[in-house]
């Protein structure tokens, strides 16, 4: 319990660092957002209008006042008003996009982790064999291929040429969201290619990680003892070795959530998928700073939550952590 509390304290501190960074980065950069907006009107604004724009970006008062105001705003999930979808608050757009990104990345990460880990177990158990010497390098190389290319090729081959999959959107138009088979089927159909392109470039990492940790464990005394006791191969492989090797995997799974959420950007852009990344790109193009900053905070938050979940999972899997 103390272990979990210590981790929670760290995550709160890390989130605070992210908020602080988010506050100071625009202010040390040449030309803060409000100055840009004001400049874009080329002097056609009067004093009161300039003040109003500065106030809506929280750029009035001393630096300290601005900072406190920003922190309080963030704690209320108030990320200001979107300049793209003008009267809409940024947060509603943010959470709409985040839902679809979570669908995409959630499915992809689950399958990538399962496939990669199973392959890693197999490769480590038959280390030096055919599977290990061919697929381990191959899968890891896939990991170093750029997501942009994989997504473009899949899109070109299956959406444009063969027309097996749709050209965009998260579900068919005319379907209202709900928990019926029609809608879920449509969502899965639209998510297939984006999920596949994230999957292809990410499962190699889990393969290599699992393999390397497992190989180190295979010579440990407890594994030799288990074999000497005459336990079946299956039992030694999964209950003894894999179970111990999975813990570092879960930790790096949580750390990779941020990377994957960020990487979904490219996939969503190619497949025209209405996720967080797609909106972020629109926001970049139209210089919607409040959205760009809010997406960093939201992604940081999801990484921290993922890390907390992995800590809890590790405590459940590893009795040694429960004492500390």
């Amino acid at each position, binding site marked *: 319990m103390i272990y979990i509390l210590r981790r929670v304290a760290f995550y709160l501190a890390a989130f605070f660092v992210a908020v602080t960074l988010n506050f100071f980065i625009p202010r040390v950069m040449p030309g803060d957002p409000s100055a840009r907006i004001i400049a874009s009107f080329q002097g056609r604004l009067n004093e009161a209008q300039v003040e109003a724009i500065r106030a809506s970006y929280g750029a009035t008062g001393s630096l300290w006042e601005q900072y406190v105001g920003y922190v309080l705003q963030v704690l209320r999930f108030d990320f200001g008003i979107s300049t793209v979808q003008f009267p809409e608050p940024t947060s509603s757009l943010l959470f709409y996009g985040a839902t679809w990104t979570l669908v995409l990345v959630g499915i992809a990460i689950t399958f990538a982790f399962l496939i990669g880990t199973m392959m890693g177990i197999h490769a480590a158990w038959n*280390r030096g064999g055919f599977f290990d010497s061919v697929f381990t390098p191959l899968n890891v190389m896939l990991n170093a*291929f750029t997501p*942009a290319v994989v997504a473009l090729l899949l899109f070109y081959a299956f959406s444009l040429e063969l027309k097996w999959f749709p050209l965009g959107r998260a579900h068919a138009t005319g379907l209202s969201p709900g928990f019926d088979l029609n809608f879920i089927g449509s969502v899965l159909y639209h998510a297939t290619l984006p999920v596949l392109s994230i999957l292809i470039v990410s499962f190699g990492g889990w393969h290599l990680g699992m393999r390397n940790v497992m190989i180190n464990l295979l010579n440990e005394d407890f594994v030799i003892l288990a074999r000497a006791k005459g336990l079946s191969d299956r039992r030694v492989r999964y209950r003894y070795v894999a179970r111990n090797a999975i813990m570092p995997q879960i930790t790096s799974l949580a750390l990779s959530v941020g990377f994957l959420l960020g990487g979904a950007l490219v996939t969503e852009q190619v497949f025209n998928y209405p996720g967080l990344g797609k909106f972020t790109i629109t926001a*970049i193009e139209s*210089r919607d700073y409040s959205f760009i900053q809010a997406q*960093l905070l939201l992604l940081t938050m999801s990484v921290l939550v993922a890390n907390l979940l992995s800590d809890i999972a590790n405590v459940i899997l590893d009795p040694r952590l429960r004492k500390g």
Partner: protein
Amino acid sequence: MADITQTRAVSLLDRLDEAAFASAAPTQEELMRELRIKARPGWTSSLPPSLAAFVTNPKGMFGVILLLGLILFSILAPIFSDYNPHRRAGKPHVAPSYEHVLGTTRMGKDVYTQVAYGGRISLAVGFGAGLASAAIGLAIGIAAGYFGGRVDDILTFFVNVVLVLPGLPLIIVIASLVDSAGPLVIGIVLALTGWGWSARTIRTQTLSLRTREFVLSAELMGERKWRIILKEIFPNMLSFFMGGLVLGTISAILAEAALSFIGLGDPNAVTWGTMLYWAQNNMALQSGAWWEIWPPAVAIMLTGAALVMINFAVDEITNPQLKASRGIGRIKRYLRRRGRSADVF
């Protein structure tokens, strides 16, 4: 009579035994041939051991040669091409021909020339950011591990923060505030956000080295701290530093490509990422101009593959069990061919 039969029987058994031994226990040369183990070339003995291990590692050398080829290709670009990567060189979307080895883009720029020149910037950003982040990771990792106490607590906190902060979104925030982030800006930001992993591994290694005899004896002799760090600890960190460098470079090259691809980079710079950005914007695939998209894609893939191979070699040097696992496969196959149970573990 009895005497003769006995000697005959013994000699027969002896000969059977000899034959059995001969078939069961091959000579060292036979074993090496059968297991495809090559003796290390003599000249490697004059190299430092870790370098010798790297040079004799087939995966690692394959990666190094591939990478050197790519670097040479982009450095020697002007010799092979008369075109300017930024200028129109022909009609739009000309298919590969004698004039344009890899065709032209929609803007009529020569693709071959762009790949070669783009490689300079993409590789420079990748290696620059990789090197810088590995160096930051090394400095912070050694400092945290060696000094311990308060210093360690503070540094470890920052390492963990950098690890949990999502890198790409942070870069997007910074890059979007700078007007069209050029390759240099992207490289600097990647270096500043990518050192978490190497700092963590190096700190762990330093912690275990700090209590070893050679460090303790240097401390007892009254060596200065920076001298112990440089002379005693740093040489042992080289392979971990290499690992951090290789991984940092891969992620920097991929991140540069991703950032340029979504249009955050400077669209006038020629890099592999911006080439993909223009190819996507100009609907290269839709109009059948595969030659606009494949060359930069293949260049990125080859660079990634080369670095992954080098990383395999570095992994095998820092972790000998991984290297042994290659031999175990051969031994298993050897025993199976001889009809023994292949229960090597």
